């Protein structure tokens, strides 16, 4: 197991290296000059030259990349062209907002998706199953940002129950934080919840039709005991996969939803960095998102070994 984890961490490092090369290359091939954009109307050829030299942008790309990589390995992701602040700090600053939204959205998704999926599968063909399946179809089809806009229109602008956008630190105002969190968490969580619902339903249905379930019933176990002791332990395996993917996606920051709700998370940071051609910030955010995905994937793989005795990593 330890060997497996070490190997996987090695692979993760390689994957991150690949990600950094691709992001670095893409950014530099896309037209747009970060320094010119940063200067905007205050453009002055001398200042421009000085800034370009200060950021090392006059050097060949390969040199720029390795110099960035060298500092990145020491935790220094460079400074923003736009604000001059260290990128590492900017990313860390956005982390609480993104983690909060990801956690809340996942909670919504799990609370909605898992129990409904299990019940729908157990009562497949029932009215509840039809309704839940139809609603989840809508859930996976409607884009989260559109749902977000509808929530703002309904709950904020029409009913006035909740604030339309913004973020308050829970340390400053806990209730305010909660009130700001509800709508974006619902917008994202209901989409993830619909996806999770569909996976849970099909995983449980699949497990329910296995011979060992019939065997367990033939031994005299009650339906309930069979569900909890035989069906669900098998269904968790595919469920963990999809929940892991959803969590990876949420931790990466839900870009458009963060923008609609003016939520100061990683997604919004990356989005603004694209507009500003703020290479270093974009590079840093993408690196963070990729790391999150890889870590979640590793955790999911380790969970497999825990859930399924047939999986052994040695």
């Amino acid at each position, binding site marked *: 197991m330890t060997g497996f984890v070490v190997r996987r961490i090695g692979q993760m490092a390689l994957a991150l290296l690949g990600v950094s090369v691709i992001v670095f290359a893409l950014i530099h091939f896309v037209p747009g000059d970060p320094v010119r954009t940063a200067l905007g109307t205050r453009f002055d050829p001398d200042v421009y030259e000085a800034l370009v030299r200060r950021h090392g942008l006059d050097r060949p790309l390969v040199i720029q990349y390795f110099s960035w990589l060298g500092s990145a390995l020491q935790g220094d992701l460079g400074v923003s062209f736009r604000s001059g602040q260290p990128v590492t700090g900017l990313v860390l600053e956005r982390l609480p907002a993104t983690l909060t939204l990801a956690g809340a959205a996942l909670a919504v998704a799990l609370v909605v998706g898992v129990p409904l999926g299990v019940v729908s599968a157990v009562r497949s063909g029932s009215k509840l199953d039809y309704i839940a399946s139809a609603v989840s179809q809508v859930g996976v089809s409607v884009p989260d940002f559109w749902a977000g806009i509808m929530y703002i229109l309904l709950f904020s602008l029409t009913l006035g129950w909740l604030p339309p956008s913004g973020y308050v630190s829970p340390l400053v105002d806990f209730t305010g934080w909660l009130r700001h969190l509800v709508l974006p968490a619902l917008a994202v969580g209901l989409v993830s919840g619909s996806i999770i619902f569909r996976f849970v339903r099909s995983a449980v249905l699949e497990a329910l039709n*296995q*011979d*060992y379930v*019939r*065997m*367990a*019933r*033939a*031994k*005299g*176990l*009650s339906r309930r005991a069979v569900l909890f*002791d*035989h069906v669900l*332990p*098998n269904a968790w*395996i595919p469920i963990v996969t999809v929940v892991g993917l959803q969590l990876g996606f949420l931790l990466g920051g839900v870009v458009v939803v963060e923008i609609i709700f003016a939520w100061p998370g990683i997604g919004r940071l990356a989005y603004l960095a694209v507009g500003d051609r703020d290479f270093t910030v974009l590079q840093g955010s993408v690196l963070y998102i990729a790391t999150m995905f890889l870590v979640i994937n590793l955790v999911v793989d380790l969970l497999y070994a825990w*859930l*399924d*005795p*047939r999986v052994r990593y040695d």
Partner: protein
Amino acid sequence: MTQPVLSVRDLSVTFRTREGPAKVVDRISYDLGPGETLAIVGESGSGKSVSSLALMQLLPTPPAVVEGEAIFEGRNLLTLDEPEMQKIRGNRIAMIFQDPMTSLNPVRTIGHQLMEPIELHLGLTGRAARERAIELLHLVGIPSAEERIDDYPHQFSGGMRQRVVIAMGISCEPDILIADEATTALDVTTQAKIIDEIKGLQERLGMSLIWITHDLGVVAGVADRVVVLYAGHIMEEADVDDLFRVRRNPYTRGLLASLPVPGRTSRRLEAIPGLPPDPLRPPRGCPFSPRCPYVADVCVREEPALREPVPGHRSKCHFDPEDLHA
């Protein structure tokens, strides 16, 4: 015959489908004596598995509709409520299934799965349940059971897994063991060994056995009596020796003719022409009439009764065997 352990009377199973009702088991009746081995033989789709699942109330209803009676200890199994049924399943009547590869839960240990019926029905817990489980594994011939009890199914071979399944079946010393194609998925040598084990256990525990199979070779080896099912109907029922000697029913004749005979290599195996009827559109008259080489006018007009021209030998045919000429 002595008082039967199980009396099945007019058992019918109908599946409600979108295209209409499909009657897959049609008024079958049989008795199972104490310590007796009854083989239920038939092709796939003849209703042999469905009829046994119906006895255990293990068919999903709906879509299945089960009618008739199955009297076990004076009570009708088909109308018992779920808690009563749970006390019988695995305890008084146990059932083991076709595929040892899929009958065991891959994420639970052998011991866990084997101890379930022991804890549930015998009330043993902890160490006592575990010891009983180890004892059962020894009984079905699993070496070093003490260590292997904590293994998972994937660590066992197919034959070993089927032994585990059998151990589960006999764990509470049931009155009846229903073995649904229990050895079909195994290779011939393992099959023979497992059959021997089950027969030995049957003698030791005095249980009755319902052996569901499509394999007439196995039938000859294990059964006392045979029920031949075709399209949900009992076509013939007889003592195993009578069945192989007399072959009253044209369907049974067809089945036996399709068996290979050792030593006779030149003969082409005879297949029964045609296919079993679609349960949504059963033929009028005798269910076998569309494929029967001896078919006569009366066969397409009237469904024959299950007659008993010789005591203990029933056949669903308008004719006596000596009158049958192709």
